[in-house]
């Protein structure tokens, strides 16, 4: 029962998402009507999420900033082609993910990682960090830095598609259906990629699990 509920939640967009999509569509219509300034609202609303996706895919802040800006510019330039069949954020994510994928394919051999500071306002994150610090007895900052590096390494060992699925599902909280729309693949493919990616990450991050 629980499993079916989870699956349903993952497949079907939530009512909040639907409301959000309707609000976005209204703003998009304004932009299409010539109110260019209205696009700033969309940028302000989605810039952190878009940057977060790209950063977690590239593990590089500067690249992520450039790619996020390019994604917004592309969206702005082609907003007159947006028909409203999908939600705006799905459309924007698709642009961002495709730009990032092509960037990663072009610069496959380049790997300059940068680390962002973890904001511990998130209760779950603070709890995890506390647990790890208590267990290891290591300095908190050092432990967080080490964990970040390990996470980046583990993510970069995944293939581009697996990394994208993990980022969209685990970090950004998109449903399977939404990920399938963004990545232009089937829901089954999304699920299998997610399962495989988690297995690889579990193997890589084993020292930090179940301590």
């Amino acid at each position, binding site marked *: 029962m629980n499993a079916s509920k989870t699956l349903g939640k993952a497949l079907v967009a939530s009512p909040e998402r639907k409301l959000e999509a309707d609000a976005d569509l209204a703003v998009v219509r304004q932009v299409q009507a010539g109110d260019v300034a209205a696009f700033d609202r969309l*940028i302000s609303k989605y*810039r*952190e999420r878009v*940057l*977060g996706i790209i*950063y*977690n895919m590239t593990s590089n*802040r500067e690249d992520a*900033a450039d790619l*996020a*800006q*390019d994604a*917004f*510019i592309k969206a*702005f*330039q082609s907003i007159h082609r947006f028909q409203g069949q999908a939600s705006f954020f799905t459309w924007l994510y698709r642009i961002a993910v495709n730009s990032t994928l092509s960037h990663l394919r072009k610069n496959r051999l380049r790997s300059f990682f940068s*680390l*962002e*500071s*973890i*904001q*511990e*306002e*998130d209760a*779950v*994150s603070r*709890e*995890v*960090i*506390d*647990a*790890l610090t*208590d*267990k290891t007895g290591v300095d908190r900052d050092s432990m967080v830095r080490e*964990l*970040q590096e390990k*996470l980046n390494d583990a*993510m970069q060992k995944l293939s581009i598609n697996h990394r994208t699925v*993990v980022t969209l599902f*685990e*970090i*950004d909280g998109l449903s399977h259906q939404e990920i399938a729309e963004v990545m232009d693949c089937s829901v089954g493919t999304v699920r299998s990629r997610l399962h495989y990616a*988690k297995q690889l*990450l*579990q193997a890589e*991050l084993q020292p*930090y*699990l*179940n*301590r």
Partner: protein
Amino acid sequence: MKREDSRKITVEDLIRLKRAERPPAEFWARFESEMRAKQLSAIVGRRTVWDGLYGAFAILRRSRLPFGAAAAAAVAWAGYHYVGVDSPAAVHAASSRSLAKTAPARLEQALVQKPRAPESVAARAPAPVPSAIAEARRDLVTVGSVSHVSPAPVSSSSEAPARTPFSDSVSAMLADFHQAMPDTAVHGMFGADREFEAAAQAPRLSMSEPLLHTDPLEVRRSRLLESALPSATRLVAGDPTKVHGDSERIYESMDRYESNERSVVGFRF
């Protein structure tokens, strides 16, 4: 200790840590400014295609003198390449070739009309004109026999290859085509067919060619003699050794004529 037992760290927990990774506030300020700059450049960038075209035209406009000179040189080269002929023999060959191509009726009309234009010249020099026409007609007959319309030359008809019905029909078709073709269709660009030049050159050539073989002094003398002594014209032109003695006689006769005129005039008044 209780918390350690209750909290088991999973892969999802670790991955979720990345969700909490956020850039500092100053990063967003820079992001905003860069974003604005890119947005503006994207808006302006839409015009760059037109700007590129406009720039290309501006370059052309700025350097129109060199481009014009180059175009003029190209036209001149093309004209020389297609029209240019070096020697009189080549001129004659080209005109012969083109004479064969043009319709005989048109050429004859051009030959007849050309000398009529300067009326006084025609009155003063009636002799060379019919000879030019006759020569042009001779040329026409000769050239027409060696043209591509009728491939077998008159002079070497016995050596010509055997003509087939197919070649005859092709020749007939070509002849019909050239007869029916209007002047504008015949003339290629830069006179590629050389028919325009040939049409213009043919009367000129036939006019000038007889003069090349004629002594101007002789012509002048015969013109003077014609009015006074019609029979002397043939005599002078035929025998150059008699020129000196004959001229004395001519002057004497002219004097007589003039004195007669004067006497006549004297009687009248």
